[in-house]
């Protein structure tokens, strides 16, 4: 049990997928302009990331490894992710039209979020088991959500702040992201071993 808690904390804070591993930077910069959309994106990504981590593990463990086809990991995982996203979109569309409207275009865009593929590949690299993969995926998603929402909140404030002209727009956003990344380095050492 401690093991899973450790994985969770380490993926959310210490090895944050965005600020430490630098994956999923596109939605991090692209969808963080408004807190509301950032929250929607965070929710959708959480769902897809966890599911695709689990399914990628299953495909890898029960199809690719028995057949000795590890070199097909990337393409199979992309396939899995695309299917999970597509499936999620259909289910959300049917069950919760409101959520579907909030998420809108972000839902299909998750397919191209490299954090999703990154987590699936990292799971293989670190030889995680089934539950570990699920927790790792969920943790990474929580880390992504946390950082995305924090960053969006900051950007909403920056938007009305008096920023020097040369730094306006994406420049100040990137500097902020860098500062956040440095701040997250403070978590190194929180989890030992």
């Amino acid at each position, binding site marked *: 049990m401690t093991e899973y808690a450790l994985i969770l904390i380490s993926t959310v804070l210490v090895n944050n997928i965005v600020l430490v591993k630098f994956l999923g930077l596109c939605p991090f910069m692209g969808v963080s302009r408004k807190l509301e959309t950032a929250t929607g994106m965070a929710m959708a990504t959480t769902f897809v990331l966890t599911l695709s981590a689990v399914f990628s593990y299953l495909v890898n463990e029960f*199809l690719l490894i028995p057949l000795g*086809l590890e070199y097909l990991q990337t393409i199979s995982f992309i396939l899995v992710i695309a299917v999970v996203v597509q499936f999620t979109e*259909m289910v959300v569309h*049917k069950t919760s039209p409101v959520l579907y409207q909030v998420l809108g275009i972000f839902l299909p865009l998750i397919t191209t979020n490299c954090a999703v593929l990154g987590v699936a590949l990292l799971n293989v690299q670190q030889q995680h088991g089934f539950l570990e993969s699920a927790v790792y995926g969920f943790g990474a998603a929580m880390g992504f959500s946390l950082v995305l929402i924090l960053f969006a909140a900051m950007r909403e404030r920056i938007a009305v702040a008096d920023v020097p002209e040369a730094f306006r727009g994406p420049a100040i956003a990137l500097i902020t992201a860098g500062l956040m990344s440095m701040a997250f380095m403070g978590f190194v050492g929180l989890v030992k071993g």
Partner: protein
Amino acid sequence: MLSALLALGVLGILFGLLLGYAAVRYKVEGDPLVEKIDAILPQTQCGQCGYPGCRPYATAIANDEADINRCPPGGETVIVSLADLLGRDPKPLDEECGEEKPKMVAYIHEEICIGCTLCIQACPVDSILGAAKQMHTIIESECTGCELCVAPCPVDCIDMVPVRQSLDTWKWPAPPPPPYEQAADGSSNPQPAGAH
């Protein structure tokens, strides 16, 4: 090599089946009434009803925003079918939309055509073939007879002609006129109640 192909193939088929099943299971139904109304409309996309095509008009009818008698190409047949479907009283065609004409197709006099492409842009169903400075022509089987191409032509080379009867286009004559017209005629020809 073969196992790799098989593995990916099987994976693809499995996922395809899953998505196919999900597409049926989680199908989001649009308004079924709009579909039914749209099926009755003649799909000329002529815009004479005041809406930019048949489907928008069907949506408007379903939302009670438009009357059922605004479709000149469909004429009485469409009005009666719509009245039947919606349980409303049939009424004569709204005159401000236009009048019912026999089915027409556009004809381009090719010796006059200057190849300006204006009619191509106007055509809602892409039934005009041509390019800039090239003579245009109508794909007769695609033309819905909506007349939208007639007005933009700067040299008036487009005429509307009745559909020529051939072995392919011949149909049995239309069924007897719709009941409301006979009712309007007077009591000389009473229609048994609930005939349709």
